[in-house]
């Protein structure tokens, strides 16, 4: 056993010694995050951390309490055990307790990368800056390593390791920005120069934008923008808690999406092999050819719904509920039994020039008589969860498409759009052939990643231009 599995097992044993018969679970997570940020084409923030956190949850006498703490020595674990053991005695009754996970071995994840030195990250940044060929650049290069374990009083004891790297950067040109992102599992697969060149190509194609009037436009959304839709569906759509509370539009068994839409959650691709309740994870199809076929559950929401957990419990202060965090939209031509994202095969496209992310986007653009090419969405916020109505802005490049060609750079728009409506049957006119892994904004080795191809949609509701 590793040090973290020993620590998890020890936490459960120490609670058992204090509260005989208690249902106990313990998670141990060691994160080693390093992140190098650059702006104005120089590194301005460069950070690293190494910390181990233990979380203990106890259900005893019908009451539940949980607590977590950074643990650097045995005395801190003893203090944590004492604190949560005391808390459960006075905690309120918890009739919705979902019970403990029975012993089950998870599948193995990919072999993680080694710990990476700060000079290696700086070299990737150097390559991105040079790849932008004189344009001002900003962004980050991050590396993550995680080792974790879970133990409970029912005998479940599992451990895992994972690594992740990511680069997200922009090139800036006379007030217009272009973006490139990539999140492979190993730094050897991170091509800083190609990403810098891609961001620069977009920025160069975006100068002197004009403003178009607000209104409904046909759109091609690049993978970076599609990631926002996928993330919103994961958080507010397929979330078992949101469905239980009738806050979600999702209904299992209903044909809610265009038949071209298949959505698969694949946490194994990044090495997230068990959830926060110790449940082994697996690939889970949520939408199959337009029909909603599953929700994401933890033990608590599953018990409430009369379902079984899907291994989507995660530690959240505010009980957001169980969410898919590695959701992918299947690209056109993907076989149903093939992972949407194997985490290593996708690189940075070099076969195209100009504003389009890759040849797959170019194929979708060729099918548009008049519409918009959108790179990125920004600051999206929910107006109503039942319709998944969301407002936000475009960012990092918008262009007019005319007769299958990108013709004119545009100023940013504000939109107010129901994401559910945008994907309804008949509204999806095309899906790209290749999916890109897009990094999420939390910084752990198993942090959210969205696997997204480009999308060609019949209509998007732009409700304002840059001037209001």
């Amino acid at each position, binding site marked *: 056993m590793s040090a973290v599995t020993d620590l998890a097992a020890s936490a459960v044993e120490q609670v058992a010694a204090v509260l005989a018969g208690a249902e106990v679970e313990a998670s141990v997570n060691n994160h080693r995050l390093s992140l190098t*940020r650059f*702006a*104005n084409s*120089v*590194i*301005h923030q*460069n*950070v*690293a951390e190494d*910390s181990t956190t233990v979380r203990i949850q106890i259900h005893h006498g019908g009451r539940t*309490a*949980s*607590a*977590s*703490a*950074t643990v650097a*020595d045995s005395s*801190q674990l003893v203090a944590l055990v004492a604190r949560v053991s005391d*808390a459960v005695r*006075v*905690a*309120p*009754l918890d*009739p919705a307790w979902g019970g403990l996970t029975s012993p089950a071995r998870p599948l193995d994840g990919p072999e993680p990368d080694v710990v990476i*030195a*700060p000079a290696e*990250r*700086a070299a990737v*940044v150097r390559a991105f*800056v040079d790849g932008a060929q004189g344009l*001002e650049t*900003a962004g*980050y290069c*991050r590396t993550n390593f995680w080792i974790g374990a879970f133990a409970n009083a029912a005998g479940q004891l599992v451990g895992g390791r994972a690594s992740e790297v990511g680069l997200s*950067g*922009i090139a*800036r040109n006379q007030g217009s920005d272009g973006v490139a992102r990539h999140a492979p599992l190993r730094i050897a697969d991170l091509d800083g120069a190609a990403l810098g060149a891609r961001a620069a190509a977009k920025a160069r194609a975006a100068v002197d934008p004009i403003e178009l009037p607000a209104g409904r436009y046909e759109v091609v959304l690049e993978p970076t923008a599609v990631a926002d839709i996928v993330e919103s569906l994961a958080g507010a759509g397929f979330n078992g808690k949101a469905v239980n*509370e*009738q*806050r979600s539009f999702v209904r299992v068994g209903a044909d809610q999406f265009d038949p071209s839409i298949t959505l698969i959650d694949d946490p194994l691709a990044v090495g997230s092999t068990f959830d926060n309740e110790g449940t082994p994870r697996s690939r889970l199809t949520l939408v199959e050819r337009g029909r909603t076929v599953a929700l994401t559950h933890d033990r608590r929401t599953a018990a409430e719904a009369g379902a079984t957990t899907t291994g989507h419990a995660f530690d959240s*202060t505010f*009980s957001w509920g169980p969410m898919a965090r590695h959701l992918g939209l299947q690209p056109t031509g993907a076989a149903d039994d093939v992972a949407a994202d194997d985490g290593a095969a996708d690189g940075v496209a070099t076969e195209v020039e100009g504003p389009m992310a890759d040849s797959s986007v170019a194929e979708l653009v060729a099918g548009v008589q008049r519409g918009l090419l959108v790179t990125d969405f*920004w*600051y*999206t916020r929910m*107006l*109503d969860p*039942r*319709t998944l109505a969301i*407002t936000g*802005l475009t960012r990092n490049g918008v262009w007019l498409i005319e007769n299958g060609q990108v013709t004119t750079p545009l100023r*940013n728009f*504000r939109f107010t759009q*129901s994401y559910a409506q945008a994907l309804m049957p008949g509204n999806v006119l095309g899906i790209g052939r290749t999916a890109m892994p897009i990094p999420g904004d*939390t*910084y752990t080795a198993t942090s959210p990643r969205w696997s997204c191809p480009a999308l060609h949609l019949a209509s998007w*509701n732009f*409700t*304002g231009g840059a001037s*209001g």
Partner: protein
Amino acid sequence: MSEFTAAETAVQAAIDAGARYADARVMHRRHEVMSARNGDVDSVSQTSDSGLGVRSMVGSGWGFFAVADLADSSVREAGRKAAEIAAASGLVGRGDSSLVPSEPVTGSWSSDCAIDPFEVALSVKGDMLVRATELMREHGADLAEAMCQSWETRKWFVSSEGHRIDQHIRESGAGIMATAIGDGETQRRSYPANRGQYRTRGWEFVEELDIVAHAARVGSEARQLLSAPVCPSGETTLILGSEQLALQIHESVGHAIELDRILGWEAAYAGTSWLDLAQLGSLKFGSELMNITVDPTIPGALGSFGYDDEGTPAAARDAVRNGIWVGVLAGRDSGAMAGLDYGGSVRADGWARLPMVRMTNVGLEPGPHTLDEIIAATDEGIYMETNRSWSIDDRRLNFQFGTEVGYEVKNGQLGRLVRNPTYTGIGPQFWSSMDMLSSEIIAWGTPNCGKGQPGQIGHTGHPAAPARFQNVRVGVRA
């Protein structure tokens, strides 16, 4: 090893490894959040963390390393690694870098706290939250939620320039939220604010909020909203309640005056700012009624402290005076780069995060009117209160907000309740249209301000009062 000794050891290790400047913070933090839903406690979470973060400058490059283990060998290694990372920064570095001069400070500061929130029994908190959700359900809510949170932070700061500061900050707050579910839509009502209201105070502040006393009204109003007419669309006179105006200040003023954004340091993520340093002191940001201060000394406000995380003593400063932009939120490095002589607004979300420019208390000075007077002086318009959604562009210009409730205003009186109220605009145009401002200031607290990579959550305060704005576009819909 004491916390001060650990910080001093890390700083010395960084200097020994070649740093020309270093500072370190040891922090112990506790956070407790309890929530209830539909008559039952939903969750109780207690977290604590301890550790040290050391920041060093080698040449012109910065490096930061954080570690939970405060043993001598561990903090020495942290200091050495911070210097190693700073040296790597120089591989893609700028030519020079400096800090706004700072006198070495030795000091100690604590926030006011009459009742320690961590000494209040969970059963007391649970009973309060459960009762509030029961009342909301009884009066119309389909989904009734209540939450209380408390934080305790102790920190010790040491720099290679001689700073030696300790602080003890306690924060508390609570809120309730009722959701009514209709045919294809939901409506929500909250008290005292979306996500609750928070202060740098103890449990006595939660008791003052008295969430149970407001639960029946909140549940009833959520239900009423389902049958209310939709907010009309068009351009009109807009009156905002103080809680919504607090978020308007946060998003369109507070973030816009962050100097790191203005300098482009956040360009790839949080964004930049429409403000240009060349216009500091002359740019018209809003009407003459607009006076915004940056003031971390306000007793009990959520953005208050004794010293920022670079050791600069808390001090009030003007950001907008009579509608003219005159000040920024700055740190010692960003201030020096901009040619300014002040910092003072740098904080970190815990020991494992790099200190960065953050809002403190950024808010309006009071105006000459009352909300009643503003409504009485308005022939036609919409009154909106309690934030429901927010979105703003990466330069902090183009915003759209939604609120939980709106009321038509006709002939100087509040009229019909309307649902799904939204408004949109451009920052300086919007603020220039403010023609009436109330004196009824409340220091609202925002406990969820996200910024930075890796992400940091900031606690900020925003004094605000009801105000009136002209020719605002309302009723934007999907």
